[in-house]
């Protein structure tokens, strides 16, 4: 059913992947309760709605780009195979190694949270292909605006993964310098960063014009921006506004929506009644649904979209159809709102397993290679654990120092009061005593 031809036709305009789950229609059986589902139940009413909608809108059926199926066999696509073909065996092994590394990191970070070393963790397991495939498709000059789950993209942008834990340990709101990596800080207010991405892309457009005017020969490589968000955030007004602005100004931005099917406990069909990729059409730019568990297809589609954007053709929306196999965060309990059968069905489409099958079948990687990947993952985990333990607690003076860039009398006054107050504890409180000695 899950054709490796790269073409998957949905029934009409609805994101029903019933065919992906032959048992979907009867999935509520046996549970005793009716849990919300990401699937449509295929009733006559929906069929009629679907038929009516098609008649009114003439909407073509959504398709999903897939190259590497769960069976590990590589299919073809008229557009994207050309991009996939550029991946060398070394590239493919690298994509696997990245996915394995970030999954191992995810396990370690979850353990650190369980052991009280982190306040919270936001797991990504299941979404490795969507993140590694898209991140590896970006160029150094591109700029990335993540949500708060893009640990895999962070890896591809050379963010020190141990630094990533600062935010979740409560020692900073982001441990990396976005200017070093072109990987912005995580944004927790849903979809706010999609507008920042479009504005940044508008800046790239202006830079290109300024550069062309001043020095046509010394032109920098064209750059684009990726704005990550999820199916839940797709309902936010900022996503709408960002797509309007991006379309109006033909901004070089790729909207990368990871449809992981669950916004904490609410399924995708509460956010949308059409495939999210279809929304692009309403804004006047291309929308592509890609199998988000197929790292080769994600890489190909993202590479195409970034080229499209860099060449001045405007934005693209990519919907990576994937699944959050774990909890929303370590504070979440998916057993309260979804069925384990659904999780199992998606585990069968695991992004790592299918690439491993392919690499082995094609003779591109052997047992020794996979053993090395595992050992590297364990080494990464040990490094992350060690570094996370060693993260120093910050000083509130650093918070005073970064409220404003320029001098501010109220901040100065409150800091002075705090120093005086702290000095009163000199001898009793070590840090206050040191501050007093340092002449603060």
């Amino acid at each position, binding site marked *: 059913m899950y054709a490796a031809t790269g073409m998957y036709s949905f029934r009409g305009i609805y994101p029903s992947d019933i065919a992906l789950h032959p048992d979907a229609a009867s999935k509520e059986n046996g549970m005793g309760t009716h849990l919300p589902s990401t699937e449509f139940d295929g009733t006559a009413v929906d069929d009629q709605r679907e038929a009516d909608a098609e008649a009114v809108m003439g909407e073509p059926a959504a398709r999903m780009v897939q190259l590497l199926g769960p069976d590990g066999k590589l299919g073809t696509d008229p557009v994207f195979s050309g991009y996939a073909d550029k991946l060398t065996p070394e590239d493919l092994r690298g994509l696997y190694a990245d996915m394995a590394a970030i999954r191992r990191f995810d396990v370690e970070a979850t353990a650190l949270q369980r052991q009280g070393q982190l306040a919270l963790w936001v797991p990504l397991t299941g979404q490795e292909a969507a993140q590694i495939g898209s991140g590896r498709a970006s160029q150094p000059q591109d700029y990335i605006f993540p949500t708060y789950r893009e640990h895999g993209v962070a890896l591809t942008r050379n963010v020190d993964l141990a630094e990533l834990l600062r935010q979740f340990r409560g020692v900073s709101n982001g441990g990396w310098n976005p200017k070093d990596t072109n990987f912005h800080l995580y944004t927790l207010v849903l979809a706010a960063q999609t507008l920042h991405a479009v*504005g940044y892309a508008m*800046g790239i457009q202006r830079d290109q014009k300024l550069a062309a005017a001043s020095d046509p020969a010394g032109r920098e490589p064209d750059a684009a921006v990726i704005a990550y968000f999820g199916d839940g955030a797709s309902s936010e007004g900022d996503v709408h506004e960002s797509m309007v602005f991006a379309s*109006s100004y033909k901004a070089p931005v790729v909207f990368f929506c990871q449809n992981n099917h669950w916004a904490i406990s609410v399924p995708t069909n509460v956010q949308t009644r059409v495939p999210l990729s279809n929304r692009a059409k309403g804004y006047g730019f291309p929308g592509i649904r890609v199998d988000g568990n197929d790292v080769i297809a994600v890489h190909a589609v993202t590479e195409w979209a970034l080229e499209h954007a860099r060449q001045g053709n405007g934005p693209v929306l990519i919907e990576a159809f994937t699944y959050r196999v774990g909890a929303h965060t370590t504070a979440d309990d998916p057993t309260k709102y979804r069925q384990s059968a659904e999780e199992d069905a998606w585990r069968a489409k695991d992004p790592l397993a299918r690439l491993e099958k392919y690499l082995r079948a094609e003779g591109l990687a052997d047992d020794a290679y996979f053993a090395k990947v595992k050992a590297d993952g364990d080494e990464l985990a040990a490094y992350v654990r060690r570094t996370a333990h060693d993260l120093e607690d910050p000083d509130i003076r650093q918070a005073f120092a970064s409220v404003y860039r320029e001098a501010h009398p109220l901040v100065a006054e409150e800091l002075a009061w705090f120093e005086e107050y702290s000095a009163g504890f000199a001898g009793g409180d070590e840090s206050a005593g040191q501050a007093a000695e340092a002449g603060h």
Partner: protein
Amino acid sequence: MTTMTIAKAINEGLRATLAANPKSLLMGEDIGPLGGVYRVTDGLIGEFGPDRVVDTPLAESGIIGTAIGLALRGYSPVCEIQFDGFVFPGFNQITTQLAKIHSRSSGKLSVPVVIRIPYGGGIGSIEHHSESPEALFAHTAGLRIITPSNPHDAYWMIQQAVQCQDPVIVFEPKRRYWLKGEVDVEAPGPSEDPFKAHVLREGTDATVVAYGPLVPVALAAANAAEEDGRSVEVIDLRSISPIDFDTVTASVRKTGRLIVTHEAPTFGGIGGEIAARISERAFHSLEAPVIRVGGFHMPYPVAKVEEDYLPDIDRILEALDRALSY
């Protein structure tokens, strides 16, 4: 010295900014060929083109959010929000993003975005066009808020806002847009620091602190009081965040009485903050409680009754009588 209106002074200030700083740009609704609903950006698109004077889609969150992105890329965007009451769709971007990016990046990133908001009532308009929401922003650390009351300040403060490396909201007193005054376009003179209050009129019996549209009202009240033999000092606060408490404190130490007036409701307003700070800083100098003269705790009323809502000369004089009765 040139004589011009506040609207023209801001226009000239923006023109000077666009000419001097190639990374500066204006963004907003109807600010291009129309020149903005108040014509503050009149003629600028013709001089600087549509990449520098950007007519945006009708979406305030979009304006602020994309301005943040432009600032992250090294640009200095100046956003126009069409009316005070329409800033709220952009409130999330201003308070959760713009105000915090410097702090949450531990100082690594700066977003020097300027937001211009025409504010205040007294123009006989319909709802959402006459509000004074400055306290909502003043409560948010990371933002700076200034408000000019005269053309010279308007000309310089908009340029100083763009030069500032922190986000700045410029509240423009819309009912004074056509107030004329002299502008020295060569030098800011005493207006060199936009975050300093100005003592506009010296006095010995009481201090009246005002800002934006109520500065001319406070001056008129002081003149009227003078006819009754009372000497009133008037301070134009100019900056709402930070507040120049040093200037206010020095004045109150001299006069012993303080009245703060603004159009915004008194409850939870800037006047309350000033009253609290001055009671801490100048408690022994105060001869009377600090009195606030402001809007009532109600949504801005319909135009036909706004005269009863807005602080005017008589309400300031009544407050002065109360202060002097202690």
